[in-house]
C-alpha cells in the first residue's frame, strides 16, 4: 500500500497557496477539520475560495479564517450564525455563492466522480435557476448543474489508516466523504491513525485512493452549537 502519512497539520497544509480553492467537510461545527483550520490560520495566505456547507461561527471553524480576512469567497448552502461574515458580505469584502444543500452535495460528488453535469429538480422556478438550462424529463422540470472540484479538499474523520482509508462517526460524516473525492489533493485529519490492515475493508467509508495526505490531529474541541438535552 501507498503510505499517505504526514507529520502534522502544518506539513499537510504547507503548500496551500493564496487564491486557491478549498473544500472543507463539516455540517455546522460537526465534523470540521479543526487542526487544519488552525494550521491555515498560521499561514500568511489570502484570497481563498472555500466550498463548505456552512461558514462556522464567529470564533470557531471557518469563522476564524473569515476573521483573519483570508477568504475571498464562500460557496455554501447556509451561512447564518456569523456576525463577521455578515459584516464582510454587506461591505463587499466577501462574495458568497448560495447553493441548495442537495445540489451542493451532488455537485461535489459529481466532481469526484467525473460527471461534468447532471439534472436536479431543486431550484426550478427560483432565482437559483437563473442562467441555467431547464429541461423536462417524464413531465417534470429539472435544472442542469455542473460539477465542483477544488485544488485541495480538507476533511476530518474518526479513524484512518496509513493507506488513507477513512471511517467516520455519527453525523460528523456529512460532506466529508464526498469532498474527499473532489480535491486534487485531499488532506485528511483523523482522531485516531492506525496502521494499514487494522481497519476492516468492509467498513471503510472513504477508500484511500481519494486521500493524498493523512495525519492524527489533536486537542479536538468539537464545539456544540445547540446543546439540547432531555432532563
Amino acid at each position, binding site marked *: 500500500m501507498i503510505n499517505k502519512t504526514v507529520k502534522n497539520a502544518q506539513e499537510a497544509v504547507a503548500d496551500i497557496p493564496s487564491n486557491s480553492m478549498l473544500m472543507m467537510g463539516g455540517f455546522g461545527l*460537526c465534523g470540521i477539520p479543526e487542526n487544519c483550520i488552525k494550521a491555515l490560520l498560521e499561514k500568511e495566505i489570502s484570497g481563498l475560495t472555500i466550498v463548505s456547507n456552512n461558514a462556522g461561527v464567529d470564533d470557531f471553524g471557518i469563522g476564524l479564517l473569515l476573521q483573519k480576512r483570508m477568504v475571498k469567497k464562500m460557496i455554501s*448552502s447556509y451561512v447564518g450564525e456569523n456576525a463577521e461574515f455578515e459584516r464582510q458580505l454587506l461591505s463587499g469584502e466577501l462574495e458568497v455563492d448560495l447553493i441548495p444543500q*442537495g445540489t451542493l452535495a451532488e455537485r461535489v460528488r459529481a466532481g469526484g466522480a467525473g460527471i461534468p453535469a447532471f439534472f436536479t429538480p431543486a431550484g426550478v422556478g427560483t432565482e437559483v435557476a437563473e442562467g441555467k438550462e431547464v429541461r423536462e424529463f417524464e413531465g417534470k422540470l429539472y435544472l442542469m448543474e455542473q460539477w465542483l472540484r477544488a485544488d485541495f479538499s480538507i476533511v476530518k474523520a474518526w479513524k484512518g489508516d496509513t493507506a488513507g482509508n477513512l471511517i467516520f462517526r455519527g453525523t*460528523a460524516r456529512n460532506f466529508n466523504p464526498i469532498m474527499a473525492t473532489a480535491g486534487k489533493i485531499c488532506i485528511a485529519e483523523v482522531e485516531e491513525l492506525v496502521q494499514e490492515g487494522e481497519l476492516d475493508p468492509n467498513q471503510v467509508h472513504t477508500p484511500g485512493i481519494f486521500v493524498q495526505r493523512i495525519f492524527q490531529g489533536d486537542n479536538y474541541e468539537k464545539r456544540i452549537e445547540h446543546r439540547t438535552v432531555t432532563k
Partner: protein
Amino acid sequence: MLTKEQIAQRIAKEVKTGQYINLGIGIPTLVANYIPKDLDVVLQSENGLLGIGPFPTEDKVDPDLINAGKQTISMVPGSALFNSAESFAMIRGGHVHLTILGAMEVSENGDIANWKIPGKMVKGMGGAMDLVASAENIIVAMQHCSKDGQSKLLTECSLPITGIKCVKKIVSDLAVVEISPEGGFILKERAPGVSVEEIKSKTEGKLIIEGEIPEMTFE
C-alpha cells in the same frame, strides 16, 4: 388561534405509519413530540441520519450527533448514518414520503417562499429547495398572517420563492387548508373559536369554501 405547539399537534395527525419524514427547523421539529407512539415512522435528518431520537440526556450528549438544526440528538434502534450526497439522494429520489417545513408565504398554486427577504441578510436556503422539489407530500406549518396583519396565504408569493407548485397542505394558527390542483386554498378545518369569515378576511389568495367547515379537534 393555535399556539405553535397546537400547530405541531394538528400536523402530527397527518402522519401515517410506515412513513419516512423530514422535519424542518422550528414548529416542524415540535411535530415529533406529538406523533402517536403506536405509529412506526422514521425521522430523517438531512445532515446524514435516519432515525432521529429524542434529545439526549446530559450524560449522552455527543458532539458527533446533531440534527440539521445543529441540535444534539440521539438515535433510535435501527438507525443508519450516511453522507450528504446519499442523504439528498434519498430526498430527491422520492424515498422520503413527507416533508414538514415552515414558510413565510405560500401561494394558491402551492409555491412556497421561505428562504430570503430582499434587503435583509441572506442566510441561504440550506436543504429547503431540494426538499420542496422532491417530496411527494409537503405540509407547511406557518402563521396565517404577519405580525402587522398581512396575509401570508397569497395569490402569488411576493418574496423570492423556494419551490413551485409543491405545497399540498397548510396548517396555520387559524386553519387547515389544502392546495387545490387547479389553484386555490381549500378550507378544511377552522381553529377552535375562529370563524370562516375571519379566515376569509385573512386569506389574500383564493379561498375555496365547500359545505360546513368543522373545527379542529385535539385529543
